[in-house]
């Protein structure tokens, strides 16, 4: 591997690590706000205990997300100085706004976590609400900046020089809305299903636990509402990509030849040399239907673009199919949950459903990782689509294998420690075994 590959690997690793904690930082506050609102309304102690236990887990994950996010803000410059020099003035604004949103989130998270005995009940709930809103706002701003790399607007190039910069237009680029909606829903979807899965595991062991039943109900509701909306937003985003980044779209769908009534290829192994897909499942006309909502529409294949502008078709296609496949599994679970809930007028808790929910615990997060692989690898070889190549943005710093190795080791270690700590935290602080964190002791 050369230095460019190591820089890309380090950036990818940092993003893949951070996104898990960023998503939890968006999703968990929403669950906590719902639970605390139920506590304020019903005064049932189970909701207070639930809010506090969720907060305890969130605190440690938020702390890791904060440091891994700091790492990213530096890595933009440490690894891609030419990109930042070029793009900073155009797309820095949403990053600055994100800074403020994160600041607000950090301040009110401090109040939420440590202020139980220090602020009035309603103020405490409002602090949680501010955390949830500002966490989501952070995601909106950061994804706007990423969307600009896919759909760079808000400036003109004259003789290779950037002029007529319009930071607002850059921030509100055509990819921004579909990407933002898709990411925010993904955060709620993944967190909802992951949390529901954990509590389903406890419910399978003790179906009388009111604590886990309430927790499962809240998390499942959030995940199940997000699932169908996510399918719609995925369609919106895919059509935007088809229109603005046809080469990425062709790679996602492993479509080598331009054709009318293009088939949708599920799975398979794309082979650039022969420009065919082996062992894929083809659904005639379906791709044209998806891309243009017309089964006879012409979809442009990879053959229309120079070879050196192709992304890694194999990785992008399989990651895309993985994401969509997982999304549909979660959608099916949401439908199952809705059907059970309607029929029984209660939180669905049949053994089979709970087992399926346990199995689905990590799926939302896997789908998010796969989705970012599609977005980022699908944009290659460009760092700014059609404007700047990734190879031209990288730092001249030699020996990038060293920081890559060090950060890989650090992130693996952190992951291992977190798994151990969280696992023990879940098991040891099961309700009843230990008093809830005292807010009025």
């Amino acid at each position, binding site marked *: 591997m050369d230095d460019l590959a190591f820089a890309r690997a380090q950036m990818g690793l940092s993003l893949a690590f951070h996104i898990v904690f960023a998503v939890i930082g968006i999703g968990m506050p929403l669950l906590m706000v719902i639970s605390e609102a139920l506590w304020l309304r019903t005064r049932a102690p189970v909701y207070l205990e639930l809010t506090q236990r969720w907060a*305890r887990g969130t*605190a*440690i994950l*938020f*702390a*890791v997300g*904060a440091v891994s996010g*700091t*790492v990213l*803000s*530096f*890595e*933009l*410059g*440490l690894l891609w100085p*030419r990109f*930042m*020099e070029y793009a*900073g*003035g155009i797309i*820095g*604004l949403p990053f*600055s*706004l*994100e*800074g*403020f949103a*994160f*600041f607000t989130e*950090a*301040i*009110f*998270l*401090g*109040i939420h976590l*440590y*202020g*139980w*005995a*220090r*602020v*009035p*009940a309603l103020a405490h709930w409002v602090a949680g609400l501010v955390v949830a809103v500002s966490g989501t706002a952070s995601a909106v701003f950061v994804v706007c900046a990423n969307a600009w790399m896919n759909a760079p607007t808000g400036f003109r190039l004259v003789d290779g020089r950037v002029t007529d*910069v*319009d*930071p607002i237009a850059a921030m509100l680029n055509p990819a921004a809305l579909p990407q933002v909606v898709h990411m925010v829903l993904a955060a709620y979807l993944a967190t909802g299903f992951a949390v529901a899965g954990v509590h389903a595991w406890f419910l399978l062991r003790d179906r009388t636990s009111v604590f886990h039943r309430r927790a499962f109900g809240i998390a499942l509701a959030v995940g199940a509402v997000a699932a169908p909306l996510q399918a719609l937003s995925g369609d919106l985003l895919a059509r935007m990509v088809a229109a603005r980044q046809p080469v990425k779209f062709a790679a996602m769908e492993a479509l080598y030849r331009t054709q009318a009534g293009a088939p949708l290829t599920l799975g398979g192994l794309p082979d650039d040399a022969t420009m065919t897909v082996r062992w894929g499942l083809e659904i005639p006309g379906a791709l044209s239907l998806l891309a243009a909502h017309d089964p006879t529409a012409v979809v442009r294949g990879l053959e229309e673009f120079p070879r050196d502008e192709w992304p890694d078709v194999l990785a992008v296609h399989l990651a895309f199919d993985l994401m969509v496949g997982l999304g549909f599994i979660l959608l099916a679970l949401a439908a199952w949950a809705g059907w059970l809930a309607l029929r029984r007028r209660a939180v669905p808790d049949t053994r089979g459903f709970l087992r399926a929910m346990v199995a689905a615990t990590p799926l939302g997060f896997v789908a998010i990782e796969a989705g970012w692989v599609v977005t980022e690898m699908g944009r290659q070889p460009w760092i700014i689509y059609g404007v700047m190549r990734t190879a031209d943005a990288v*730092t*001249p*710093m*030699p020996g990038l294998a060293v*920081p890559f190795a*060090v*950060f890989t080791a*650090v992130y693996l270690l*952190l992951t291992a*420690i977190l798994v151990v*700590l969280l696992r023990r*935290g879940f098991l040891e602080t099961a309700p009843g075994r230990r008093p809830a964190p005292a*807010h*009025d002791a």
Partner: protein
Amino acid sequence: MTPDPVPLLALVILVALVLYALSGGADFGGGMWDLVATGPRARRQREAIEEAIAPIWEANHVWLILVVVVLFTAFPPAFAATMTALHVPLTLVLLGIVARGAAFAFRKYDVPDDRVHRRWSTIFGVASLLTPFFLGASLGALASGEIRLAGGVVTTGFLAGWPRPFALGCGLFAQALFAFLAAVYLTVDTQGEPDLQEDFRRRALGAGLGVAPVAVGVLLLARTGAPVVFAALTSRRAVPLLVATALAAAGALAALWRRRFRLARALAVVEVTGVLVGWGLAQYPYAIIPDLTFHAARGPAVTLRLLTWALALGALVLVPSFAYLLRVFKGARPPRGAAP
């Protein structure tokens, strides 16, 4: 005609750095005192440090992020050149930030066993000691005049400026200042526990006395190690600031000696602010001495204008929020049990 946003935005960077030093810097210092917690009250010392830091930990951190985003939004070439030339020390800073942030969170979450606790404390402490050293060395390198650019491209490689006596002295200076600041804050935070307060008073006095020779040493090293900054700091117009900072430093020590802890805290804040403002004024108009000024590095005019507005609006939200945070956790404690 609109006013020139360049000095204003450079000032924002300086103010954010000052606030980072005053808040996050004290957290670094807290980690150092955690590392060397000794005596019969070692455990209580660690707990007091943790109680003081925990609620404001995440918020304190964001000042550094603000410095980074304002720098790359308003002055992209300065950001690119800084991150290129200082790749090595800044990567070490990042590793330190990750290590201490994770260790701090894990320690709180892990089993409350003393041995386990100490292991996390060690990582937290060592990272808290080393991170400000490389941060200080990086700022020193920007001031040294040894990082050279031609046509916006760094020509002096990756070892210019920072592995030099002056920059390393700046690193040591940052460590000493943060250790002093943290100990002074902790004398106020431990009000009501006289033994503990006395521990931190002794530490604050020791660190405060240690700051003086380091400060003088750095100034002497600047003579050859950072001549532009040295000339500015020894010019006549710098005299009032130098005198005020030195008086604040002496006053803080005197206040500690007489156990006027709140006064000592205020004077320590003035001292640290004076040091950073002195450096900032000496460095301006340069982002990187001597080849890149903030003016030359400025981004598009419209971006600077929008950023100024965004910062103003952001401050409108942040200042009251931050004041509320400090009031909740650093003000007088309400009677326990007042909440639901």
